[in-house]
């Protein structure tokens, strides 16, 4: 590969911080993923590969995991990276600051460093997804010598993050750009190839497209231009496009249907919604054909997806029948669009149109991000858009939205629809800790069949966010987390 060069990437919205362990915003991860590293990387089939951990093994019952760390790794400030950093990061810092990891860590009994380069995890019981917890976004390694004993949120190092990654933090012009520079002491020989990475803040989507066209920008991460621009941009000379790099997240879009009150509390109404939606149209017009109509709570790229589920076809007549059967009387139903840009706005309009055509009296209620969060987490909605990541395993990214222990006001990311089914709760519980995988698959298939019948939420699509980039950039995406991983192996063909 050729050495040197600069890569210009769009970052939108501007991240609040680059401290990946405390902020799990998408863009914090994108930029921070170059500075920090996890113990492992995952390929596009979600298989783990060594990074800061060179090897690992588990006991036969799946309850004890031993990690061997790479030697000779240094932090950007020159301090050595050791097992103490691992224990501190996971057991202390992340347990306090990272809500998602905290849930998973509930299965962990203890974390111990047996020597400078060995860490042992003792689990309470076998936890299927345990091995998929160690990518940089979920479990980044953070420097103990800087954070220990301080107030993590206000530590001055948050403004000048220090990691082990292939790039070092150089400068952040707020509102303009973030500049990362090559880590000359990177622990992988011969990497990285690039000298500089610039992340540009361009708040307007159309301007981002123009910036790419005029060559100012080399990479448009998935979702950073409006979908309408994608076909045009991909047709430009020297432009490459890929949908790779989202396998780990496998973003799944659906409509929250409030199971507690109103027409949406009736399963027939919820099924009618499924039949009323022309999801193929939305996929073609709004998503340029990228993605896949979703028929299951589990994404097709996620482990334990069941391909033989019954599908809801677009069938307005059937929807009307169902509505008639339940005696729907035109009660107004509020739709809360997701305030994340044009496509979602348009999608809301399409869905509203679809629903109106089968006789559902739908009203769009507009709000911004904060209002949306507030309303969904206060259950003050009838229908609302959302999309969520699956994190490679139903136990991490799917169960949270359907189990009744996750019905709690205050968060829009749990079981906000209020679906409650003791059977499902039990099955999910068992599936997380079942061993080996065949047992898990069996349980997850049962779950999927039941949920598809009950329609607790109306699944829309498995989203694909194509990454558009200048073809001179090579090796841009080489892992299951795509852009969120470092540009450590990327290089530029001159």
């Amino acid at each position, binding site marked *: 590969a050729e050495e040197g060069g600069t890569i210009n990437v769009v970052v939108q919205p501007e991240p609040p911080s680059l401290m990946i362990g405390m902020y799990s915003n998408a863009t914090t991860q994108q930029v921070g993923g170059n500075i920090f590293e996890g113990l492992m990387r995952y390929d596009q089939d979600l298989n783990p590969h060594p990074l800061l951990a060179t090897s690992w093994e588990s006991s036969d019952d799946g309850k004890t995991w031993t990690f061997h760390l790479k030697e000779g790794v240094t932090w950007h400030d020159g301090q050595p990276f050791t097992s103490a950093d691992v224990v501190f990061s996971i057991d202390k810092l992340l347990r306090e600051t990272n809500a998602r990891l905290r849930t998973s860590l509930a299965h962990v009994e203890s974390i111990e460093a047996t020597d400078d380069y060995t860490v042992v995890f003792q689990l309470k019981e076998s936890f299927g997804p345990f091995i998929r917890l160690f990518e940089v976004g979920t479990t980044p390694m953070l420097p103990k010598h800087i954070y220990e004993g301080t107030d993590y949120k206000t530590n001055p190092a948050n403004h000048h993050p220090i990691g082990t990654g292939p790039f070092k933090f150089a400068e952040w012009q707020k509102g303009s750009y973030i500049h990362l520079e090559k880590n000359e002491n990177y622990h992988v020989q011969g990497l990285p190839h690039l000298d500089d990475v610039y992340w540009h803040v361009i708040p307007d989507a159309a301007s981002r497209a123009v910036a790419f066209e005029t060559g100012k920008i080399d990479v448009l991460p998935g979702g950073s231009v*409006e979908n309408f621009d994608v076909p045009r941009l991909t047709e430009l000379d020297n432009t490459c496009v890929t949908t790779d790099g989202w396998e780990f997240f496998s973003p799944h879009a659906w409509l929250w249907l409030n199971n507690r009150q109103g027409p949406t509390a009736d399963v027939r109404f919820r099924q009618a919604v499924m039949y009323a939606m022309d999801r193929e149209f939305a996929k073609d017009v709004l998503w340029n054909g990228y993605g896949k109509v979703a028929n299951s709570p589990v994404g097709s790229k996620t482990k334990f997806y069941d391909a033989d589920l019954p599908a809801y076809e677009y069938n307005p007549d059937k929807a009307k029948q169902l509505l008639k059967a339940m005696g729907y009387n035109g009660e107004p139903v509020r739709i809360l*669009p997701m305030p994340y840009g044009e496509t979602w706005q348009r999608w809301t309009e399409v869905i509203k149109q679809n629903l109106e055509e089968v006789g559902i009296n739908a009203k769009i*209620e507009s709000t911004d991000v904060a209002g949306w969060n507030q309303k969904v987490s206060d259950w003050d909605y009838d229908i609302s858009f959302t999309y969520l990541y699956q994190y490679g395993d139903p136990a991490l990214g799917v169960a949270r939205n359907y189990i009744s222990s996750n019905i709690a006001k205050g968060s829009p990311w749990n079981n906000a629809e209020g679906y409650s089914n003791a059977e499902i709760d039990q099955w999910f519980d068992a599936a997380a800790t079942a061993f080996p995988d065949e047992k898990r698959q069996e349980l997850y298939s049962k779950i999927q069949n039941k949920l598809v019948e009950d329609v607790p939420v109306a699944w829309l699509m498995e989203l694909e966010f194509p990454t558009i980039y200048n073809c001179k950039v090579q090796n841009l995406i080489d892992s299951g987390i795509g852009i969120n991983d470092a540009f450590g192996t990327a290089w530029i063909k001159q």
Partner: protein
Amino acid sequence: MNVIRALTQNKVAMFGFAVLLLLSLIAIFGPMLYDGSPWKMVQRPFIPPFANDRFLLGTDTLGRDVLAGLIYGARISLLVGLVSTVIALLIGIPLGAYAGYFGGWVDEILMRFTEVFQTVPSFALAVVLVAIFEPSVYSITGAIAIVSWPPVARLVRGEFLALRNQEYVLAAKLNGQSHRNIILKEILPNSLSPIIVLASLMVATAILLESSLSFLGLGDPEIMSWGYMIGAAKTVIRQAWWLSFIPGVAIAVTVLALNLLGEGLNEALNPKLSGKREH
């Protein structure tokens, strides 16, 4: 009245008036003739203008009829413009009238109050108001009214300050007429000309403001407006520039017409400009 004569002789103003009249007719009757919702996806997306006889101006990103959107948009633009102006006048006129008529500490308090609203950058305030009270036709109209009343209050106050010592007002006082009567019957009718002129220009500004808010995504999602159309088309400006161009021209023409009419009114109502000297 000779104001109307002066106005009818002003060709430019009459042109503006004609355009507005046409727009109003479209706004009132258009939706009746043009049945169906402008939100309906009727054809494949991105049909350019004049390519399809049934959809004269083509279709938008979702295959909705652009002409239908334009017609329904006229309604909302004019409505928001008019209603917000009326509200602004309802706030501004009494405030300015009291401040100007009574003077003294009443004036001081009311004008400090006005100053607060004038000091906050108005567009930013409108954005915040709409965002906070969530975009709907009511919050948008209200926000526009709230940011546009201070100039009314100032103007009315100025007029009242100038007129309250006019001899005919003094005469009314000597007649023993009540303050209310003097304000409503003596001073207000005589300060109406500049208020009318200002109001016509405020409608124009309100239409622009509504479209700016819609453009920023702060429009009422239930209602088709020109600003919404531009905002929705901005992402496809490269593939289909006409989708933003057409409603943009519609706004510009409407605002232009209002301005022409406003200037015409100004010339007709303002004796200083119409060349008629009273002495």
